[in-house]
């Protein structure tokens, strides 16, 4: 069996708040294989966001090891981590984090700019990605001219454009209504069926039900790790539309 895409061993993260130490992560050892769809759940302060920051290479663990795609990344410096994020990880945020007053296509091109891809190729790949998330007609729209769901699709296109190893989504449906959330989950499921590893952080059980595996965090530890028979978001969507 191949090495898992993500392997953490005894991951700890300690923050110092004044005199007291806060153990945001207190020993997390988890494997996530390629092609999994994982939902990370837990109440606020449970460490799920810190976990995501660490596996997203935004933050370094205080102790413990983290290998991404078989490579140990827990000891890399800031610029090396930036390169890892750029090549291997696609982020989707709750509040979309699109650049204001910047057309959709340029938002999608952003990671490719930092990867040093020539302009013509950037534009072609960004256009193709926008097409895959169903926004071929909105390439030159500004974020302010797009709906919330469309904005999140732009963000997903931006996450996919570098052909990363995994997509990390932090509360991706937090700012969307239930119907749009469903559409989005259908998109994630479609991507996952295409082979993409997806990790979603959420506190909504309804959203977690679309994942094939659910990790529950509490006080910096994984307290439950269970397989889940995922609901099909696409089918639900079809059923919810009045005939």
């Amino acid at each position, binding site marked *: 069996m191949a090495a898992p895409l993500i392997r953490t061993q005894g991951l700890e993260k300690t923050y110092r708040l004044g005199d007291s130490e806060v153990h945001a992560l207190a020993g997390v050892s988890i494997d996530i294989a390629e092609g999994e769809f994982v939902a990370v759940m837990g109440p606020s302060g449970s460490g799920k966001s810190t976990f995501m*920051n660490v596996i997203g290479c935004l933050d370094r663990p205080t102790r413990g090891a983290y290998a991404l795609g078989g490579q140990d990344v827990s000891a890399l410096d*800031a*610029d090396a981590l930036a390169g890892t994020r750029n090549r291997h990880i696609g982020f989707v945020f709750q509040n979309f984090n699109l*650049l204001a007053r910047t057309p959709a296509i340029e938002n999608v091109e952003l990671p490719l700019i930092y990867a040093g891809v020539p302009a013509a190729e950037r534009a072609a790949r960004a256009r193709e990605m926008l097409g895959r998330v169903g926004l071929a007609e909105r390439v030159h729209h500004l974020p302010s001219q797009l709906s919330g769901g469309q904005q999140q699709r732009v963000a997903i296109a931006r996450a996919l454009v570098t052909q990363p190893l995994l997509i990390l989504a932090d509360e991706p449906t937090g700012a969307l209504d239930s119907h749009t959330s469903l559409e989005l989950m259908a998109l994630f499921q479609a991507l996952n069926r295409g082979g993409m590893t997806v990790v979603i952080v959420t506190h909504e059980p309804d959203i977690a039900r679309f994942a094939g595996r659910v990790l529950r965090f509490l006080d910096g530890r994984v307290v439950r790790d269970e397989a889940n028979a995922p609901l099909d978001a696409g089918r639900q969507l079809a059923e919810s539309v009045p005939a």
Partner: protein
Amino acid sequence: MNLTALLRIALRALAVNKLRSALTMLGIIIGVSAVIVMVAVGAGAQARVEEQIRALGSNLLLILSGARTQSGVRLGLGSNYSLNEGDAFAITREIPGATAAPAVRGGAQLIWGNANWSTVIYGTTPEYLPVRQWTLAAGRTFEPAEMAGAAKVCIIGQTVVKNLFGATDPIGQSIRIRRVPFTVIGVLETKGQSMMGTDQDDVVLMPLNTARNRVLGSTTLAKQRAVSVIWVKVDDGLDTNAIAEQVRALLRQRHRLQAGADDDFSLRNLAEIMAAQEASSRILTILLAAVASVSLVVGGIGIMNIMLVSVTERTREIGLRMAVGARTRDILGQFLVEAVTLSLIGGLVGTLLGVAGAFAVALLAGWRVLLSTNAVLLAVAFAFLIGVFFGFYPARKAARLNPVEALRFE
């Protein structure tokens, strides 16, 4: 990440807050245009002084008759005719490289036809023209026979020509100076203003004896063969100060002054005075530029201020850029380019405004201004450096942000 991409990001960011960007640039615009105008005005003043030095003739010594003490009262310079034409001839004869021209000076009314004009009379020798580096526009200079015979001939300056003759050719015309008829034999070239601002072209030259005997009319003057001033020209390549000391020694010897006694004449090194004035106008230029540069620095502080605000406002954008793979140097470059873009656009607009301002000063105040490419390039380069210097701190602050905290920033 290449410069064009950074420049596009910078321009877009600046375009988002147009008013703010424009106001920030204003500091640099004012600074750069002030530097350019000030340097242009200063350089213009300096050029004027240099021109006056050329007009005066370089390497020139001026000897004035000394003060006379009468019953214990010291009278001013020139009150005593301690110099005589023999002194001048001796200087020319005995000091190699020095040419002296003695002169007596007075005022007189000129009449030609029904026109009249009051001007300055110089009784002098033919050496006066080469010593003052003055040439004739027309006619000829005095001949030895005219010098010896106190002939009633004169050479007139351009201002006199204009006021007395208008368009008529003055050569050969007869003018009356204090009722004595004189024949005009020559016309001087235009020389312009002296460093004191007097019109050097408002003058009539005549032989020394003619002036003493027939116009200024003093018998004592004539007997003593006295003169009021002696101009001495030092040949090029010689040390003017050394020649000045030789002249001083010669005159003291001729005047039989004891060692320790005061000079009975005043010797001035005009080139030195002019050089001092040139130096002071150069210092003035530097001073003006320095004061203007202060406003440029203030403009730079404005840029720094706005860039700090911008970094804070765009913390989330910085976090996002880091999340998708921007390295420290990408963020540093982005904000540095933004600051430099502000300062460079400000510098270019300021250059246009400064050049226009220099012309406006020339036109409205009538001052002489001198625009130099170097001053303009220097001002723009300085603006660029200001952008780099004051942009670096905010850019570094942005580049050092922690991506996790930046993304979470509200």
